[in-house]
Structures are given as structure tokens and as C-alpha cells.
């Protein structure tokens, strides 16, 4: 009866901090989840500097890399996670399938575990102590307006194609943007990176040189920082090619504007998010938090997220919360047999349409890199600032 009075404060980006989730929690578990949606900068800041302002942090793995050493989060005991074994390999061993190659960048598993409770460094392999419980992830690529481009787009190099001068955009979040840049530079053959996820200063300089040049030439219409900006840029036709997030494509499409999440031959840049527990959480609240996590992985949220185009960390539980048509369309990359709608009821696809990029394994299998925090991050960040100011 006490759980009813428990209030857990969760913050994160608007991507997954959904009120529907909070309502469902209240319904299924009885306690209150307070959701605060922030932009990704504020998310990092809160996690790093205001440990008292939250109980549950809904953050991305690259943010985790930055924030973990502050000690604001506590590790989770995997033995208390019911569906732990069903979590996809990416988050445990780093391999989607036993023979997948691990992509460059801050792959989730590299910051997913710590050797023992209280440790501030990450473990090299799977342990019983998990930093974040994976919740949501996706493979990102470039979004395009096929109606305005009118020809196939196949490579990341197209982002800097002078054809799209003044009509291209990338996002202004350094840890993510640098990876998009790297994908472009590598595809252009201008730079051979040792490890895109951990560039040297020279590689960083070279990358920025190329993009600064492009920026000065007026290649970019704008840089976007929020989800919303990317949607507006694309929907209003300000931009015809840009780095984008999957639901943003969906949002553009739901307005009846053609927009494609274009799979590219060099592969995807991927990201993953998870929930972490504040180190101040204990007792009944901690128990409630575990209860919440288990509920999170039990399928309802997964289904909810997958129906927006994200992936769930435990796909098989989510399957039960999706229709066959939905599962086929979103996960298996099959032709839709009926209209596909979002969780809020907006029509996203007609029968007969296929998801851009195909099935889960096609998409997550061709991840070329993860959003990253590199060793030279401080240097990179300063360079990024210079790039923006250039």
C-alpha cells in the first residue's frame, strides 16, 4: 500500500520521457513517475551536477561515459533484472549476433558494466553490475526529401555535395555530430581514421577543416539541436538532406511530406539510451525503481517505442505488445499488410510500404559507429565550438 505514495522523478530527453509511460506505470505498478523532458545538454548537466534533482536518469550511453565517474549514479544488480538474459547482445557483449563486428565509437557495452559497486571506471566485459539498463536505441542515417532531390542517394558523401548547397544540415551536438562528420569524411576518402570513435587530434583537425570549408561555402542551411528543429527544417523544405533521427522522419511523413530515412552503403551511426539510478536512491524507492526497470523491459514500453520506429532492448517481450503487422513492418522489415499507425494513432505508413533500411538485423547489423566520447573530447569540443563560430 505504501508504494502508492512513492514518487520517482525521472528526467531525460523528450524521446522516451513520455507521459503515456508514466500513466501506464501508475496503472500497472501503482506508484507515481514524474517525467521531466529536457534537451540533451541539460540532460548531461543534470546527471552530472544535480544528483539530487532526479531518481532515475534516462540518458544516452555516451552521456553515461561522461557522467558515470561523478558517482551520481549507482550500478544495478543484473540478478534483479528479470529479463536480463533476453537483452540484445549489443548491450552485453557488444555483438548483435555472435559473429558481428563491434562498431567504432562509444559502443554501449563498453560503458555498460563496472567491475564492482562503487567503481568509477568501466569493466571491459560483462559483469553483474550494470550502469544503465538499455531501453531504446536506433541506427541513424541521413534523412532526405526524395521529392526535392529526385535521384537516389547512396553515400554519406552526398551531405557535402555542392548540389545541395544551402540545403544541407547536420546536428549541433558535438558527440553526435562529429560522428556524422567522420562518416562523411571517411566515405569521401579524404581521411582514413584509425578509430572514428577515438580520433587523434590530427584526425579531428582534418575533419573540421573539411567541414569548416564546406560551411564557409554555404553548404549548410542551419545546424539543428533539437528534434523539433530537424523536423521543421525538413518539413518546410529548408533542407533536403541532413542527419536525422528516425521518429523525426516519421513526424515529417505524418504531415504527408515525403521523407526517407536513407540507408547508405557505409552503414549507420547508432545510438542507445538507458535508464540509470541516482546514487541517492535506496530502500523502498530503490525497490520501486527495480520494479519499474523490470516492468520497462517487460514489453509494453518496448512495443510503444518500436511502434515509433525505435528498437527495444528486449525485442521478444515487445512482440507481445505489437500486432503481427506491426512486428513485421517495424522489426522484420516486411511489407505492411495494413495501415501502420503511431501509438497516438497517427497514420505512418500504408499497406504495402516497407521500412527504410529493412529489418532489425539489416539495420543494426550495418552500424558503422556509435555516438562517442573520445579521449580527446575536450579538444574536440573546443574545435566544435570553433566550427560553429566559423
Amino acid at each position, binding site marked *: 500500500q505504501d508504494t502508492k505514495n512513492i514518487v520517482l522523478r525521472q528526467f531525460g*530527453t*523528450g524521446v522516451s520521457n*513520455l507521459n503515456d509511460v508514466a500513466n501506464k506505470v501508475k496503472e500497472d505498478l501503482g506508484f507515481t513517475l514524474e517525467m521531466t523532458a529536457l534537451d540533451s545538454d*541539460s540532460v548531461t548537466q543534470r546527471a552530472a551536477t544535480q544528483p539530487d534533482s532526479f531518481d532515475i536518469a534516462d540518458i544516452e550511453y555516451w552521456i553515461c561515459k561522461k557522467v558515470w565517474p561523478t558517482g551520481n549514479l549507482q550500478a544495478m544488480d543484473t540478478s534483479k533484472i528479470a529479463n536480463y538474459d533476453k537483452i540484445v547482445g549489443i548491450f552485453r557483449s557488444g555483438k548483435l549476433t555472435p559473429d558481428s563486428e563491434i562498431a567504432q565509437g562509444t559502443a554501449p557495452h563498453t560503458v555498460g558494466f563496472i567491475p564492482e559497486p562503487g567503481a568509477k571506471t568501466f569493466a571491459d566485459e560483462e559483469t553483474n553490475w550494470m550502469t544503465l539498463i538499455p531501453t531504446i536505441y536506433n541506427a541513424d542515417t541521413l534523412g532526405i526529401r526524395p521529392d526535392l532531390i529526385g535521384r537516389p542517394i547512396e553515400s554519406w558523401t552526398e551531405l557535402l555535395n555542392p548540389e545541395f548547397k544551402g540545403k544541407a544540415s547536420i546536428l549541433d551536438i558535438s558527440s553526435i555530430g562529429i560522428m556524422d562528420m567522420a562518416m562523411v569524411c571517411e566515405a569521401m576518402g579524404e581521411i582514413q581514421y584509425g578509430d572514428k570513435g577515438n580520433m587523434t587530434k590530427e584526425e579531428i583537425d582534418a575533419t573540421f577543416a573539411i567541414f569548416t570549408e564546406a560551411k564557409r561555402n554555404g553548404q549548410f542551411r542551419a545546424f539543428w539541436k533539437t528534434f523539433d528543429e530537424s523536423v521543421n527544417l525538413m518539413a518546410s523544405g529548408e533542407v533536403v538532406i541532413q542527419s536525422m533521427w528516425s521518429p523525426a522522419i516519421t513526424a515529417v511523413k505524418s504531415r504527408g511530406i515525403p521523407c526517407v530515412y536513407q540507408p547508405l552503403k557505409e552503414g549507420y551511426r547508432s545510438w542507445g539510451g538507458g535508464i540509470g539510478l541516482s546514487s541517492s536512491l535506496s530502500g523502498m524507492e530503490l525497490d520501486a525503481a527495480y520494479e519499474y526497470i523490470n516492468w520497462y523491459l517487460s514489453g509494453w514500453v518496448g512495443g510503444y517505442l518500436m511502434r515509433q520506429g525505435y528498437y527495444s532492448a528486449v525485442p521478444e517481450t515487445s512482440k507481445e505488445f505489437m500486432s503481427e503487422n506491426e512486428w513485421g513492418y517495424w522489426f522484420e522489415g516486411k511489407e505492411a499488410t495494413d495501415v501502420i499507425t503511431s501509438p497516438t494513432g497517427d497514420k505512418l505508413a500504408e499497406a504495402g510500404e516497407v521500412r527504410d533500411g529493412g529489418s532489425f538485423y539489416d539495420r543494426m547489423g550495418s552500424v558503422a559507429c556509435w555516438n562517442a566520447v573520445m579521449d580527446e573530447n575536450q579538444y574536440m569540443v573546443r574545435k566544435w565550438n570553433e566550427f560553429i563560430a566559423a
Partner: protein
Amino acid sequence: MEKRPISFYVLAAFFCLFVLFLYGPTITIGILSFQGPQGGLTFPMRGVSVHWFRDLFQEQAVGDIWGAFRRSLGLGLMVMVTTVVVSVMAGLAFRKRFVGSGLLFYVAITSLVIPSILISLGIGLIFNQLGLKVHWATSGFGAQLTWTLPFGLLIMFAVFNRFDKSYEEAARDQGATSWQTIRHVVLPIIAPSLIGVALFGFTLSYDEFARTLLTAGSYNTLPLEVFGMTTNVTSPVIYALGTLTTLFSFAIIGVFLLGAWVMAKRRARLGSDAGKGV
């Protein structure tokens, strides 16, 4: 009525353009808030509906507009009251030359001109280093006061520069204590200006973004919430919010002007034979 010079019409036209310019976004917001249910934040319109106004009163996919609104309202009122009280007190203080008044004045000016983000950063850092919790009602409140108080103070200067000291002397002469003088004479006389200070304080607080950014803590104020909402699928619901706000302001100001007009009429009637006979 007098004939107006040509310059009047030129300037009036310029003024209209200026108002149009000020209202440009407001009008855009107004139009787009009537987007059809499928429409987005930009043109073209996809149908016309009041869907988003209805939607505004339902729970959003993300965030808590009304919670944030309540907090902003609460914070706005707190800031408003504090600003009025503190500015009046400080205004009274500055009427005499006390040791250090010059210094305090320059500190207040600094508070006015210091870039907002520095306040936000500094307060955030202090709370962080002292291990205090930032919260909109503590650190956020303080941060906003550094912005509203100097404005309040400047208005009080303007008010007291025009305030005739002999009113107070007359009150003292009539046996009023210092407090009675303030309570029964000074405050009633400056009351109209205090309404101005209050409105100003509330508006500045209600729309404050930069100073609250790092000082609001777990719960967002409305501007922060709107900003947060833009990180997700933003819908014309925020336009609906904007349109309602505008209509609401019009209503308030309309009521205010009507009140002033009625008062003026009443007074005119009462004093219509003033000055006749000695």
C-alpha cells in the same frame, strides 16, 4: 479636432508598421494555432481546426505544460510580490544618502547589465559546490530577482524623483509616525506605479529563460518546459498556448483600460463644477 501635420501620418504609419512587426510572430502563431490535426509547426496549413486548443488541455505526449504553467505562475507571483516589496523598501532607502548607497546602486546596475547566463552559471556553481539543491523556488527565485529588482529599483527612482516630499512632511505634521506616513500617504500615492512594478516583475519572471536555465532544478518553469518540448515532436499545441496567452493579455489590458475609463468618467462627473466659485 485640429488638423494633423503630414508628419503625423508618416509617423503613424511607421508606428503601425512597428506594431505589425511586433505582432508578426504573434499573428503567425495565431494562424498556425488553427492548424488541422495533421498539421505541423510550419506552413502550409493542413486544414483548419481548433484541435490544438483542445489538445492543450489534455495531457501531452511529453512534459507537463500545466504543471509548468502553475509553477511559472507561482514563481511569477512570488517574484512580483518580492520585487514590489523590496524595490519599494530600497527606493525609500535611496531617498536619503546613506553611507554606501552609491556602491549599492552600482551593484544593482551591475545586476541589470550582467549577462543572464553568468548569473545562471554562477548560482548553479555555488549551489553545486555547497551541495545545495537547486529548485525553482529557491535558486531560480533568487536568479530571477537579480533581474527584476534592478528594474523595480529604477522604476522606484523614477517614481520618487517625481514624489513631492511635502506630502510626507504634511503627514508628519499631522502626527503620523514614519510607518503611518508610508502606509497612509506614500504607498497610496505611489500605488499606481506599484502596479506597474508588479506587472513588470511578473512579466519579466514569466518569460525568463536564461537565468532560470541552470537554477530551476527538477521542475521546469513554462519557458523551460516549452524549450524542453522542442526536443521532442513539437506540435502546434505550443502555438495554441501562445495564442491563448495573447488573447488573455488583451483581455486583461482591455479590462484595465475600461476600468481607467470608467474611473475617469466618474471623477469627471463628481468634479464637474470644480473651480466654480472659490
